[in-house]
């Protein structure tokens, strides 16, 4: 990628006592890209993000935000942050909260624009305390985007949202990316990372396990997913051409395979009684699960 680097981790490590939460983690964030940081709970995602917000200090190595220390107010003016748990005071209204945060930035959006992007226009005068869970999440998002930041850091932005709300959130995020905003997001919904991210950083045990496009991650594990019911033996299936992996649950099989067109006739010839055949693209979810298992 030729776009300029706007933030980076360089050999950044973080130890909490004897626990190594992040281990010589290096990664660049480029202007305008969407980077999904994935990994199991406790893998080090929150620590990596915490270093970027300056809320956590690296034990060794260093972290840069717009070429500066992440605790610098000046660097932070280029970033908007949405944390998993940050509850604003109940008694202030949506508009008051957004106005206050907008003031921290040099060239904020107009209040009406922020509220409209976050779908809060009708709720501007409501106190925070009376909002529903989804509305609260939208306010957290509004606080992150009100300053027109060049880098948006969102930690589990859609947790607790229903599927409609999630999809409309994606749409807003895509709009911001079209404006040139870079986004770093963590999520438990791998479908979300697949739909939004230019690159996926997979973290395990505090280390960067894989860094690739969603397609690249999926093709590492193998092109397509073939499911069926059969009486065939695992070993026999594993030896068929193009088969990368065999998973079995009773009579249900799931193969990861390349070159499916060549594989299918062989499969059907081997077991004429084969049933319930489906072929689908490898999901990011199963690819990530495979990669993590492989590394463990």
């Amino acid at each position: 990628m030729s776009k300029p680097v706007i933030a980076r981790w360089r050999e950044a490590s973080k130890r909490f006592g004897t626990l190594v939460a992040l281990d010589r983690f290096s990664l660049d964030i480029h202007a305008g890209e969407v980077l999904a940081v994935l990994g199991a709970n406790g893998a080090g995602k929150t620590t990596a993000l915490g270093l970027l917000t300056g809320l956590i200090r690296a034990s060794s190595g260093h972290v840069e935000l717009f070429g500066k220390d992440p605790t610098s107010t000046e660097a932070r003016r280029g970033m908007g942050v949405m944390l998993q748990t940050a509850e604003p005071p109940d008694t202030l209204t949506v508009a008051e909260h957004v106005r206050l945060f907008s003031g921290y930035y040099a060239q904020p959006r107009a209040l009406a624009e922020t509220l409209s992007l976050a779908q809060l226009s009708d709720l501007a005068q409501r106190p925070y305390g009376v909002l529903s869970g989804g509305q609260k999440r939208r306010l957290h998002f509004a606080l992150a985007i009100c300053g027109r930041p060049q880098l948006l850091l969102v930690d589990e932005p859609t947790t607790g949202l229903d599927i409609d709300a999630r999809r409309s959130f994606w749409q807003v995020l895509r709009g911001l990316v079209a404006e040139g905003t870079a986004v770093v997001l963590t999520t438990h919904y791998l479908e979300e990372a697949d739909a939004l991210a230019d690159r996926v950083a997979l973290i395990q045990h505090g280390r960067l396990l894989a860094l690739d496009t969603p397609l690249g991650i999926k093709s590492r594990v193998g092109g397509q997913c073939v499911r069926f019911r059969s009486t065939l033996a695992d070993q026999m299936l594993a030896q068929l051409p193009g088969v990368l992996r065999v998973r079995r649950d009773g009579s249900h099989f799931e193969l990861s395979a390349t070159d499916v067109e060549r594989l299918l006739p062989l499969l059907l010839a081997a077991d004429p009684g084969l049933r319930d055949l489906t072929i689908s693209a490898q999901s990011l979810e199963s690819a990530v699960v495979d990669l993590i298992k492989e590394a463990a």
Partner: protein
Amino acid sequence: MNTAIRPSMTKIYALESWLAFIQVIRAPAFALPTLLFPLAFYVLFALVLPTRMGNMAPAHYLLASYGAFAAIGPALFGFGVGLAMEQQMGWLALKRASPMPIGAYFASKLAMAMLFALCTTLLLGGTAVVFGKVRMDISQWLHLTLVLVFGAIPFCAMGLLVGSIAKAQSAVAIVNLIYLPMSALSGLWMPVKMFPMFLQELAPLLPAYHFGVLALDAAGFEVGNPGVALMALIGFTLVFTALAFYAQRRRWSP
């Protein structure tokens, strides 16, 4: 992003302070006790039960001492409970990750406490003039108001220390345990002279006693040395602030 352009610091501090004030004035659990308790006490003990304390008119004397009592409440609660709560809710973390200058957060709470002290002073002062027939020179009124508003500062520092150490659930209890006994033992409810001897000797160890001395001095009552009281309050402020910063550093760098 153009990093050369900076937002207006004055605006940030002003809006942060105003909203810190609005935030608590809209919360009945905060505003009602801090505004109405001192007023209710004043009305009851200075106006309704007009007992004579020596040759001092209670409406006049208690205006100064309840004025101090009223100024301490929002300072202690705003910092002690507010800080502990916002810390626990993750709100302070988001503020720290934002481009807000961190000083604005503390300055806004300080401004809130001083603004609140101004409100209670006006409330008690108005009641004293209308119902207590208290009369003072304009310069005395000004002096008393300044003392009561700025006298909130040491108790902001004290609250800052509590809020930096206590968890949200225990902060309310801790602040109440400090606020009411300290106010009583410092002579803000009745003159220290009416206490047993050992309590009279204990009183100068409490910052609220010195606040009382300054407030009473402004209202024309001599109960101690105002110069000593001022130095004591400055000393308490510095010590509490230093301890609070030490606690904050430990809290934020695990």
